[in-house]
């Protein structure tokens, strides 16, 4: 199944009459990492949720190369604040596999493999809720990656993490990119954007102000607002 190209036309989501994001026009191709940037409250999270199908599309269209249902099942989402199932680390990892009917033994094998990849192999039997913030985010990332999604959304995945945990998460993301997983992540960490981005979406007040290749965006941003944002000014 092929997800991309993704075509977004006039997409908008509103809540109680207030436009949270949109109208957005967007064309995304099928490789690399798209980094969504913008100040707090610019609608990064909502845009990701909208593309993922977790926020209501009130106007416009979002078209994948396949059906919406097929597209949704080939995606995974990592939240800014990781949601831990009240189960052990191992059971958190096997949960999405068991949902789609993977046998217990295969699921267990894959879970152990992924736990090792994110450095949680010593904690398989610990309750997920007692892990530290960094460990929880790594677990959430592994749990999202374990179903081998074609497209992974990450909403500020390292916002609450220290340098070391951030480096570990980024290593997993780089490996995912190398194996062909499409990433769409939001961040307001400029350094992270420079390290990971192939292309950048610059968002302000729920509108996409810029959509360009990463190198071009960082070297010669087209809009005043993006220039100010990159300088570190407060953009309103």
């Amino acid at each position, binding site marked *: 199944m092929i997800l991309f190209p993704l075509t977004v036309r006039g997409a908008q989501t509103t809540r109680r009459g207030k436009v949270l994001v949109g109208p957005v026009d967007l064309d995304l191709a099928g490789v690399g990492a798209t980094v969504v940037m913008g100040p707090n409250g610019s609608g990064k999270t909502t845009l990701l949720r909208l593309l*993922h199908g*977790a926020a209501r599309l009130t106007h416009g269209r979002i078209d994948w190369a396949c059906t919406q249902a097929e597209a*949704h*099942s080939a995606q*995974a*989402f990592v*939240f800014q604040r990781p*949601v831990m*199932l*009240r*189960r052990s680390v191992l059971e958190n990892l096997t*949960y*999405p596999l068991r*949902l789609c009917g993977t046998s217990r033994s295969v699921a267990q094998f894959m879970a152990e493999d992924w736990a090792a990849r994110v450095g949680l192999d010593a904690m398989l039997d610990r*309750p997920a*809720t*007692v892990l530290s913030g960094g460990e929880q985010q790594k677990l959430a990332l592994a749990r999202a990656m374990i179903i081998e999604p074609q497209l992974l959304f990450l909403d500020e995945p390292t916002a609450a993490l220290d340098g070391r945990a951030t480096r570990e998460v980024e290593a997993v993301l780089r490996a995912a990119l190398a194996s062909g997983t499409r990433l769409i992540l939001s961040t307001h960490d400029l350094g992270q954007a420079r390290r990971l981005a192939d292309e950048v979406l610059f968002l302000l007040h729920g509108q996409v102000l810029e959509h360009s290749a990463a190198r071009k965006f960082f070297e010669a941003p087209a809009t005043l607002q993006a220039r100010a944002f990159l300088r570190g000014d407060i953009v309103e």
Partner: protein
Amino acid sequence: MGDLWAGLSEAFRLLVTLDSDLVEITLRSLQVTLTALAIGSAIALPLAAFLAVRRFRWRRSVIAVLNALMGLPPVVVGLAVYVLLSRSGPFGVLGLLFTPSAMIIAQVIIIVPLIASVAHQSLRDLWSEYHDLLISMNVTQSQKIRTLLWDARRALLTASLAGFGRAIGEVGAIMIVGGNIEHATRVLTTAIALETGRGDFALALGLGFVLIGLAITVNLCIHWLGRTEQEGRW
């Protein structure tokens, strides 16, 4: 005070001698209440989870009614079940009136709203925590319900124990539909009511202490089996 002491020593005597009547009605109490608890939980817990995950038009009203029904007067439930099961009632042909089955039916009706309401509170909180994740994972309605029921099992145990407490101490409904027939439908609570009416306070109190001891023992056993208050926060 004298009556209380007499009651205590009577309870002690009944227990030590393993009085055959006492054993019989205690076992019946347990049988009726535990059966009602199992059936009630099987109905109430999935219902509570369903109400937590499913948005439908009358959801709020259903929850409000369920909460209100926690205070359902047992005597009225007993009366209603009696009318339904009596020979001239719609279920009269089943011949269930004045049997332990009738008592179980009445107790199920009494405890389902209680268990469902208490369970719904904790399932609703868990659902708000899990909502985004499970929606993102494309989880079906029944998978959602199963996930919530499993992950909230400790809290649900508390809900069920509340139901057990209500059922084991209940007298009004089972007196009406069971009839307090010796060797057939007599249980601890109805026996206490009977002995009190007959003026045998020592025996009534003795049975009362046995009842309290039974309730505490069952609670402790279930807690111990469920290993509550161990293994982390939940």
